[in-house]
């Protein structure tokens, strides 16, 4: 066990400072030290994708990273998507198209889909499937998720033009 180190990062636009062991995983830091339990842990070996967050705008596994490695980073988690009482269009599309059942993979799925739509704002169905294949869902058979991402793309693209 090493001495605790200071970690400073921004999550959903809010600056945080915490002290933790250098070996602490980023996902544990987010969940335990910052109390943001929306990000989930499903495998701790980088396959299931439930812990996916955006780090400096790009999707990344928070279970494969140490908190100290994220020092100075801007992180976005599922808690930052909705504004006030209004769901983000992607969240709204997931609700409309039954893109979730148990909801456990959902935070990782949303952050992954957000990254996909940033890189490829008008993906084909095949591209959506490829894009979200980074996250495992055991409930939905992915059908509702694919529909939701398709629908969100339609809403988000014109919105960006404004």
């Amino acid at each position, binding site marked *: 066990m090493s001495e605790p180190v200071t970690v400073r990062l921004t999550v959903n636009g809010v600056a945080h400072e915490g002290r933790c062991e250098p070996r602490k995983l980023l996902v544990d830091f987010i969940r335990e030290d910052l109390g943001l339990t929306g990000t*989930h842990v499903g495998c701790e070996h980088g396959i299931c994708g439930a812990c996916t967050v955006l780090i400096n705008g790009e999707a990344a596994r928070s279970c494969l990273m140490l908190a100290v490695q994220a020092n100075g980073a801007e992180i976005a988690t599922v808690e930052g998507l909705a504004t006030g009482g209004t769901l983000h269009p992607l969240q709204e599309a997931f609700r409309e198209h039954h893109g979730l059942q148990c909801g456990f993979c*959902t935070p990782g799925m949303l952050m992954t889909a957000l990254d996909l739509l940033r890189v490829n704002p008008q993906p084909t169905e095949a591209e959506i*499937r490829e894009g979200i294949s980074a996250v495992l869902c055991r409930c939905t058979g992915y059908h509702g998720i694919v529909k939701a991402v398709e629908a969100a793309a339609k809403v988000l693209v014109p919105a960006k033009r404004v």
Partner: protein
Amino acid sequence: MTSEGWIGKPVTRVEDARLLTGRGTYIDDLPMPHAHHAAIVRSPYAHARILGYDVRAALAMPGVVGVVTGADVAAKTKPFAVGVTSPVHYYCTATDKARFVGEPVAVVVARDRYTAEDAAELVQVDYEPLPAVVDPERALDADAPVLHEKVGTNLANHRRLVYGDPDRAFAEAEVVIRERFRFPKIGSTPIETYGIVARWDPIDEVLTIWANFMGPFIMHPLTARVLGLPENRMRLIVPQDIGGSFGIKTSMFPYIALIGLTAMTTGVTVKWIEDRREHLLASSSGTDRVAYRELAAKKDGTILGMRFRWYDNVGGYIRSPEPGCSYRPLGNYVGPYRFQHLEVEASTVMTNKSLTGPNRGYACGHLYFESERMVDLLAEKLGMDPVAVRKKNLIATDAFPYRTPTGGLYDSGDYAGAFDRALEMARYDELRREQAKARAAGRYVGIGIALAVDPSVSNMGYVATALDPQFRAKPEYLAKSGAMEAATVKVDPLGRVTAILGTTPQGQGHQTIVSQIVAHELGLTPRDVTVVDEMDTFTRIWSISSGTYSSRFGSVGTSATALAARKLRTKLVEYGAHLMSLPVDEVEWREGAVRAKSGKGASYTIKDLAGRGHWNTESLPEGIEAGLQATAVFHFDVAKAVDEHDRVNSSNTYGFIAEVMAVEVDPRTGAVKILRYVTVHDAGTIINPLIVEGQIYGGALHGLGGALYEDMQYDADGQCLTATFMDYLVPTACEAPTIDIAHVSSPSPLTTLGSKGLGESGTMTVPAVVANAVSDALAPIGVRINELPINPSALWARIHQAGGPDMAPRTPHSLGASRETRDAPRSAG
């Protein structure tokens, strides 16, 4: 919309807003500020005698508060009751021996998880490795290593069940088909793993358990007994959200005992969250099974009888509710077919693999894979179309309710209608023409069909089939039966409605469904209804069958909810009539209010009645119970104990599934591509088609995983080869098919709303339909699928054994009875 009209509507889910914004409450999210953390030490050996433990180094580590070993477990707990008479001593950890890789041997408790895991590595366990056995047939050989010396054999349970006169059916048969099948060990691997928090109050002697467990079910009394606690001193609280289960979380009860004991021993609140490796090594899965099947038929395709001989591999110990793997589908062993003669020889075998239990489709994926392959083999042998053979044998639409020879009571159905619908949607005749063209062009295109009776709401009495009738006839034997659920609907003083259930949903949207039903019955909108559906064994009404498993909520939970709402409505009508000074038969409940049938005079809405009924009890009619609430307990009268002839109605409602799938096999790679997939379901009344579609898609992908990818593999020494998601292949979005879904509806006469469960759906049919389609695709080169999963390497090997992709198509050879069998099946008749 004010009254009626909420049943059958695709209402979006009330659960979604919290889950989409990261505000769900899963077990790992519960605030437990003073909890210590557990790390479990697990056996690296598949089979080893435990000679001793040295925990000094672990205890010396700063932050460690205690270590519990198998020796403590043996001294302080009892073994779990098992569902068989064999003297299998199954404790919540290994005690004398470890019997599978990953079996818990000790637990370390420390101030945080990181420290606990460090200290777990310092626990020294002295093992004497023993030879291992992993194959269920090999385990029964006389020279095989024996796991449990007190049992003296690896056979945990054996039953021979006879219905009708199968010997005569086989003697009279004009055609007999025999085949051997293997079904893989599949775990549905919910993305949220097991999690438990235990707190012991030594003054009041209450153990409080928070767990993402889907019971209480029969496991609550079993676990309390193991810990020596009265049940009303072991409080189980299930958090609002569970991250999937698919049956797997039924089997976490040994960990409840273990973490509970750890809390009682160390005196601190103990939290344990399983990691993925632990989950894949040691949580639960369905059984891997070797099956020998025989089918007797007439030349016109009429099935006369069948014989099943099963070897179900339950791993190192038989854990309750096993041997349900053999008996859960007992009432629907015959599937949708009319034949009356059946012999089942079920062997439950212990080997050095991880333990088994319910897994979505519990035993039905196995059953229909074998049965539907046999029907196709019969069609092939007779030169008949697989559709024609099935139609020849279907239970007729006018035969419902239909009593099966094994005791099942199929409550309603229109199997021919649903099957026709599937064929029509798949454009079956056109598909066959396209297939002929593709074959002529050298492509390997196949069409598969699978039919299944979809059982829901297990009658927990079926498990007793494991015991022989002589044992069950003893006066001291207590018979078992039942399937119940309770619901309470109440109106608060300001006139809003809350419904309370003790179900444990894992993503099935119970809150949404309950809000729809209550709104429907009381003339409200779903938004007017708050639903609390969390289990707390200290506050909810529950019994031995309570929990969320065997697709039961859609039948039994919905029935209890509707009954409670109706009971409340009756009370409100009576109260309203009293306020209006009218006889009850002159008023009615219409558009959310009590109104005079004449249309004249005042009316009273729920809000009006709540304002008076709560605030002024003097206004209530004489003899009525105060308080505006109603509780209903629904149970099925058709859930009876197994009879002396081993007949039992193992479930309570029975839906139906008809599927058609077209695939193309790439002979160069062994890859299977789904070209078309049609599924038609009959689940009676559908309450929310959106949720139903989600269940069908999800179930189908679990079925596809088992058919094509998933397999918990072990080497000959019992080392698990699939302990990460890199090795245990779960389908991603790229492998998921698009499905053409349709419904026919034969409402159940047994449930309040006519609904039946359908949560397991495609897990029962997809292994069969894929195997049939791939066999049909490869019929020109004589490759028939009798083992799953059909992953590319396995299929490529089969194709190359048959001469490879370049060989000219040839006529399929006839089936040899002993092809690929190590143990020749019994001869017919």
